[in-house]
């Protein structure tokens, strides 16, 4: 398969790619000039809608459609929140974009704000990306100097301010309304919906929350056109009116047991096996793969036999995973214990659960305690049933929680145990020969801190 000519990653190997001068020398801010002034905001939205762009932050919601949820004729202010809290394990494409091509990001943000009539944009940036902070702030300063930000942008009455807002190491701040609550200065407990952010978001005003990579796509869609974007990726299934297709280039993160971990740009729809073999140099150390995370740990696990599944918005769901997520692939080789994998996952979600709603708060803690006990050699087969029950019952999909963190916690449990049950059973039987068949509740282990 021919390597895709990078669009999103076109600039990252160029020296000083993060400066305005280099960005412009390579065609930067052409899209801005095409839109601001010559086009009406609604037209920009229409182009983005037509392009079929779906959000790159994990939920895959059609971006242009999301923009149309803003109330028409609202007196404002309208806010744009850019989700740069990238914390999904395995994911680092936003980091690369912000470090090495921040102007691509900023141009996309300005275009998005123009389209949605937002007058202030906050980039919610995770604390752990200090270089991104530096580079973004530099880019923003350069934009003010160049007249791309501030008042009367490109001589129109469009005005925009962009501010960086630093997080403090909490995964849930990457959740749309968790981000909003954190931005407002409160604990990041996601909000119940309705009302939806488009109607009542940050500071009770209409708000759009978009991902960094999504913003970059907007830049190129305006620059090259919706048709161009649609020519890449996987078209919608004509027989399925609910299928919104998987259009455009995608940044795939690849890490774990491969020879060349890294961020690779390809049309949406390459398979996991293609990503590993054609981009990632294959599984490391001459080993075979056992499993892989397809889109950040929240999405669950592919078995090796499922590696030929396309990584588009529809593919992972066909093999029982939650979805494409952040398209961050992490490969586990044949020596990895799935029990260790699941323990790592449960520990992550127990640590990051915001604690607001009962099923997630207690369910993630309970799963971790069970995995701790299993790893300590005191597991029971019954624990697997309990874990599956937790996995099947918590989340916004069954409706039992406020946000999707619980679904993210649930899917690794469900996939790991259902797809690798025999490995779990073998582990439990061999490490706890005396007690694996006990069905009554057993005494808790001495309280272990989550850490």
């Amino acid at each position, binding site marked *: 398969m021919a390597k895709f000519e990078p669009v999103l990653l076109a600039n990252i190997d160029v020296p000083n790619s993060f400066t305005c001068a280099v960005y412009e020398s390579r065609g930067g801010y052409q899209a801005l000039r095409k839109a601001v002034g010559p086009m009406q905001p609604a037209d920009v939205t229409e182009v983005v809608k037509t392009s079929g762009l779906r959000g790159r932050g994990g939920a895959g919601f059609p971006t242009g459609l999301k923009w149309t949820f803003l109330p028409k004729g609202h007196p404002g202010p309208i806010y744009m929140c850019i989700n740069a809290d990238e914390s999904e394990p395995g994911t680092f494409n936003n980091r690369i974009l912000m470090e090495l091509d921040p102007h691509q990001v900023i141009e996309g943000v300005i275009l998005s704000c123009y389209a949605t009539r937002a007058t202030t944009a906050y980039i919610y940036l995770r604390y752990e990306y200090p270089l991104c902070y530096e580079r973004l702030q530099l880019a923003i300063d350069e934009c003010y100097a160049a007249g791309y930000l501030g008042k009367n942008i490109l001589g129109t009455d469009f005005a925009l301010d962009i501010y960086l807002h630093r997080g403090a190491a909490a995964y849930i701040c990457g959740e749309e309304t968790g981000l909003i609550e954190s931005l407002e200065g409160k604990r990041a407990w996601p909000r119940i919906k309705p009302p939806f952010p488009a109607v009542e978001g940050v500071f009770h005003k209409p708000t759009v929350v978009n991902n960094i990579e999504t913003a970059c796509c907007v830049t190129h869609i305006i620059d090259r056109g919706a048709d161009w974007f649609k020519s890449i990726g996987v078209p919608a299934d004509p027989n399925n009116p609910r299928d919104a297709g998987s259009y455009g280039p995608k940044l795939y993160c690849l890490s774990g047991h491969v020879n060349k971990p890294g961020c690779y740009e390809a049309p949406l729809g390459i398979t996991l096996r293609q990503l590993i073999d054609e981009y990632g140099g294959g599984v490391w150390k001459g080993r075979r793969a056992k499993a892989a995370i397809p889109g950040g740990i929240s999405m669950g696990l592919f078995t090796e036999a499922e590696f030929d599944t396309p990584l588009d918005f529809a593919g992972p769901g066909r093999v029982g995973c939650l979805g494409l997520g952040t398209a961050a692939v992490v490969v586990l080789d044949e020596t990895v214990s799935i029990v260790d994998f699941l323990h790592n996952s449960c520990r992550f979600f127990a640590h990051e659960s915001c604690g607001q709603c*009962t099923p997630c*708060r207690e369910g993630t803690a309970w799963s971790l305690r069970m995995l701790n006990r299993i790893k300590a050699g005191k597991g029971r087969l019954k624990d697997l049933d309990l874990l599956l029950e937790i996995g099947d019952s918590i989340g916004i*999909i069954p409706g*039992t929680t406020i946000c999707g963190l619980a679904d993210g916690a649930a899917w690794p449990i469900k996939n790991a145990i259902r797809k690798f049950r025999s490995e779990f059973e073998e582990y439990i039987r061999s490490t706890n020969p005396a007690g694996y068949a006990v069905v009554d509740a057993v005494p808790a282990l001495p309280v272990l801190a989550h850490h």
Partner: protein
Amino acid sequence: MGIVLVNGVEVEVADDERLNGIQAAARAGVEIPRYCWHPGLSVVASCRMCLVETGTRNAETGAISMMPKLVPACQTPAKAGTVFVTESETVKKARAMVEEDLLIDHPIDCPICDKAGECYLQDYHFEHGQKERRADIRPFTSRRRDLGPTVTLFVDRCVMCSRCVRFGREVAGTSELLVINRGSDEEIDVLPGFPLENKLSGNVVDLCPVGALGDKDFLYQQRVWFMKRHKQVCTHCATGCSIWTEENQDHVYRVRPRENPHVNQWWMCDIGRYGFHHVHDAARLVGAERRDGDQYAAIEFSEAIADLGPRFDAQAKQGRLAAVLSPFLTVEEAFLLAHWIRSRDADALMAVGPVPVEGEDERFKSGFTIRAERCPNRRGIEAIVRHPRGELASWEDVHSEAEAGRLSGVWITGGYPKPWVDDAAAAKLAGVPLVVVQDLFASPLWEIATYRLPGAAFAEREGSYVNVDHRLQAAEWAVRPPAGARVEGSVYWQLLGLPGMYKSRRVLDDLAATIGYFAPAAALVPETGVQLDASAAEASTAPLLASGS
């Protein structure tokens, strides 16, 4: 008007009502369990106990389409056509899951926890919970953490409903309570140096659905299943919060707010909440006495009652009678006493007792207000005093008349929880030949009384009070007075020679027919009271009888 379906039962919802699923279900007689939702606080839908199935019924076809996922009933509006299913297998499983989740880390404290008997966690476990424990067994007892002068926290019993935190931020506006940490490590706490210390602090204990928040005043005093509760009205200020007075064997253990959308919503202040201890104060006066020279002889109440008619009649011939009607009396009691005094002296001086005022009105964020006027019934008593001549004399007027030597007999009612009369005031009345004092505690006035008649505290009275907004509320009696004290109403009932037991409702019938201001109370007074017309309060009901005509 719209129709909402709850488990197939039709429930009417008016067009201007904003009900959620929990409230609509309550109308159908169905209780949807919940921890975090409370009608007086914002909706957070975080406990997830109220999950139900919901859908819509097509108005034309009647076809019902249900949503595929569960929703919290607390955040689902009950509009025309909304369908709720609260007892399906899916709903039951979800409830059992939430209940089990909350019990996983809950300390085994029931035997030592105040909340037993009125605990949501206990009740819902029996009704909705799993049959046996499946999570690892971890017997432990809760840590305890002081939050302030009135409230203590049993940290590990908390189910993170956040009601207490929301109360502090939304109703009191004082925001002392916070949540610390994240996830299953979350706990309630206060900042060192910023304790939970506001006059509405006790409400968070009512709000707590489990035994996490403890009321220091009530802690370990009584098991709730031994207490009976009675509908009363708080007498500590002119707001007149509706309350429950909770007692066992004539001892009051706890006072809690009673829901009243017209007066106090769901709240009461700490002054009223913890202001019942005087009812059982050892210093309370007991034993009727009659002055005999410099001494007092103990007498039976019946003897005093037999004495007083003839004695007041005799005094009426010597000069003017007077009655001081305390703003702590019920309107029925004041009406009876006024009637009795005036029947002996049509010209009797009727006065309202001193009205205690402390500081300024204190308004909280939600609008709840503690009034500076620290008595329950000034307006009701004034209306009775003004009838029929429109005159309203004060405590000071009684002093002037007494000092001028024009008073020959005075009946003074007290019933104040705090000291209310000083030596100077008592001295001014010392010259009146016949002084009857009904009161709770000794005072300089007690020392000059001719007849000492120990009276009732609020918990012992039945009758009505009129609050700052001219709302009349009726109270039942909760406990019997101690031996040697008699409720004022029953003393007047006997004085008037009325048959049978004192029943305040019969007096209110009379009162409503006699004084226009009280007319709305002619029908049975609802639990939340009845609104009187403020403009009728000062209207004279009869032309003034000038002394000359």
